[in-house]
């Protein structure tokens, strides 16, 4: 499988270009994810922070475009490699950083950590460390919306490797059968830990599996903001209007090893180099400039503001207290006295 090529102009695809506002909104999210990743790696390298970190580098565009198609009250369920999905959906940096630093001021009081970040205020309902498990739960959120008769949509994020586990199948079938308002977004970064797509997945395209669940399935260039936004908007609209779920296979590439510290020796250097050369972040940025959608000053201001927020978030995290030992047995049940 070759690396997805970003063509933000989507020339010849007949895809309508979203408004400039939307494009800039997407870029703001992309930049946030990109800069947060930089900062995370820097802080990890400094040794001031220690956590399992699954970098989303290379996959920034997917959730940014998806979230631009979502409402604030829509839900997402995501995975260990999900900080990009959450930032795009509105997770505040302070809450995030304090959590990954294990502080009591963290959004999960330091108990969840990076793999279990949760922020219901912005619809970030579940983050799971178990491959495949975001999907069955996403169905439940969508089922609730269906029963409530509201028009909220739920997005389930997962990886290419996750499309081979049982939970994927059960969830897809139920969603197709019950016509649930879910969008299944598979971020196909072509690796499951150390194993390539070709050694994991019998299907030529994961999107092909949708047919077996009576739902549309589409492979798109996840690194193209325009293609990704287009596919997401149609899927979200379909879900919102009661027509049921969609499977989107968003092609992308994982720029780092699986987890921070993993040397990625198993990745073909040529393939990786090609992907990195097509880095969607600078390409999107230059395209915005070349199309006159934003000026250098505007983009620099966006980035600067993010950096300021990051400084503040890291400072907040590092100066916050760790939880007291009493917290260890709190939040097991609603009733604290039950042990």
């Amino acid at each position, binding site marked *: 499988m070759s690396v997805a090529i970003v063509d933000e102009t989507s020339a010849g695809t007949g895809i309508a270009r979203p408004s400039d506002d939307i494009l800039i909104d997407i870029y703001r999210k992309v930049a946030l994810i990109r800069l947060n990743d930089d900062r995370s790696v820097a802080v990890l390298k400094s040794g001031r922070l220690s956590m399992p970190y699954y970098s989303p580098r290379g996959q920034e565009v997917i959730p940014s475009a998806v979230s631009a198609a979502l409402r604030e009250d829509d839900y997402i369920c995501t995975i260990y490699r999900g900080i990009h999905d959450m930032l795009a959906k509105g997770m505040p940096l302070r809450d995030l950083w304090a959590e990954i630093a294990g502080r009591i001021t963290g959004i*999960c009081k330091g108990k969840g950590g990076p793999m279990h970040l*949760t922020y219901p205020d912005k619809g970030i309902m579940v983050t799971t460390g178990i491959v495949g498990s975001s999907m069955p739960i996403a169905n*439940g959120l969508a*089922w609730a919306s269906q029963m409530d008769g509201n028009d909220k949509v739920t997005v389930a994020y997962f990886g290419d490797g996750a499309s081979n586990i049982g*939970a994927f199948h059960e*969830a897809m079938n*139920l969603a197709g059968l019950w016509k649930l308002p879910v969008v299944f977004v598979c971020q196909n970064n072509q690796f499951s830990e150390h194993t390539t797509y070709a050694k994991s997945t019998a299907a030529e395209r994961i999107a092909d599996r949708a047919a077996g669940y009576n739902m549309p399935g589409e492979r798109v260039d996840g690194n193209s903001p325009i293609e990704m936004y287009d596919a997401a908007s149609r899927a979200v609209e379909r879900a919102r209007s009661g027509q049921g779920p969609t499977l989107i296979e968003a092609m992308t590439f994982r720029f780092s090893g699986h987890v921070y510290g993993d040397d990625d020796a198993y990745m073909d250097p040529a393939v990786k180099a090609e992907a990195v050369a097509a880095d969607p972040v600078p390409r999107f940025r230059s395209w915005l400039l070349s199309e006159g959608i934003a000026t250098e000053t505007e983009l620099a201001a966006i980035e600067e503001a993010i950096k300021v927020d990051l400084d503040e978030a890291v400072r907040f995290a590092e100066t916050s207290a760790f939880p007291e030992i009493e917290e260890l047995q709190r939040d097991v049940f609603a009733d604290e006295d039950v042990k």
Partner: protein
Amino acid sequence: MSGENVVNILQSVNQALADAMADDAKVVVLGEDVGDPEGGGVVGATQGLSTRFGETRCRSTPIAEQAIVGAAIGASLVGYRPVAEIMLMNFTAVAMDMMVNHAAKLRYMSGGQTSVPIVIRTMTGAGFSNGGQHSDYVEGWFAHTAGIKVVAPSTAADAYGLMRSCIDDPDPCLFIENIPTYWLPDTAAVPGSRVPLGQAKVTREGTDLTIIAYSRVAREALAAADELAKAGISAEVVDLRTISPWDKKTVLASVSKTGRAIVAHEALRHFGPGGEIASTISEELFSKLKAPVTRLGAPTAPVPFSKPLEEAFMVGSKDIVPAAKVLAAYK
């Protein structure tokens, strides 16, 4: 048991579900066959619910236990109170991830931001020749998991009251029904009544020893106590009702009084839930015990099909009575 108030456990479960659904529109039922308007699942526990409340609120699912529990979890995160059926307890093995890694942990891992008020109903128990993959008691797996409550009634009234409490509860509950005792006539619960979670019940008072049990074996303990009485041994019976969190206070109070204890369940004895109860008693009542605490549980084997083997496998009064006589002989 007067005529009018006689029901069985199965009917009580059905009644509890119906009453909860009538009381609260957020209570929904899902699982394999549960919406079948004719039967209501293979034993009929959900009979009539889809007819009365609609197929949306009592919804049959594909055979997909991860999808079932996952859907229950998701809906519970945003205000629903789903009761999910995992038909037989052995099938929890295909839903463990959703139950243990997710339902039980989301409150904690989110720092209390979310909660999972679901009930997972399941049935099990040897006695009907269902063999090695359809009869296991594996409550021990869940009792050993933080964040999920485990309940196992032995009477119709407890089945009703505990089910209502499980549905009310803000956290996930596993509700275990025993198949062979489903159809025994029993006294009905007061409609709307609750049995608090985590409270055991002294179902028979006695002075010589305490038998601690739950589910079918709690009934066997009563039968054993009758028989022991004939032999001049006065047995107190404690029905745990909730396995986790268990009612240490009631158990310890009883054994403090009697000085002798038997812990009995149908699950394997080997690394079984009885170990928690027995070792707590031994630890906390070290100097008060007149005899070692006896644990009874199934032998270390899968549940056999053949009738005589299955009968030998099942812990019952046949095992409790001789164990109690040995204990009573300690002075």
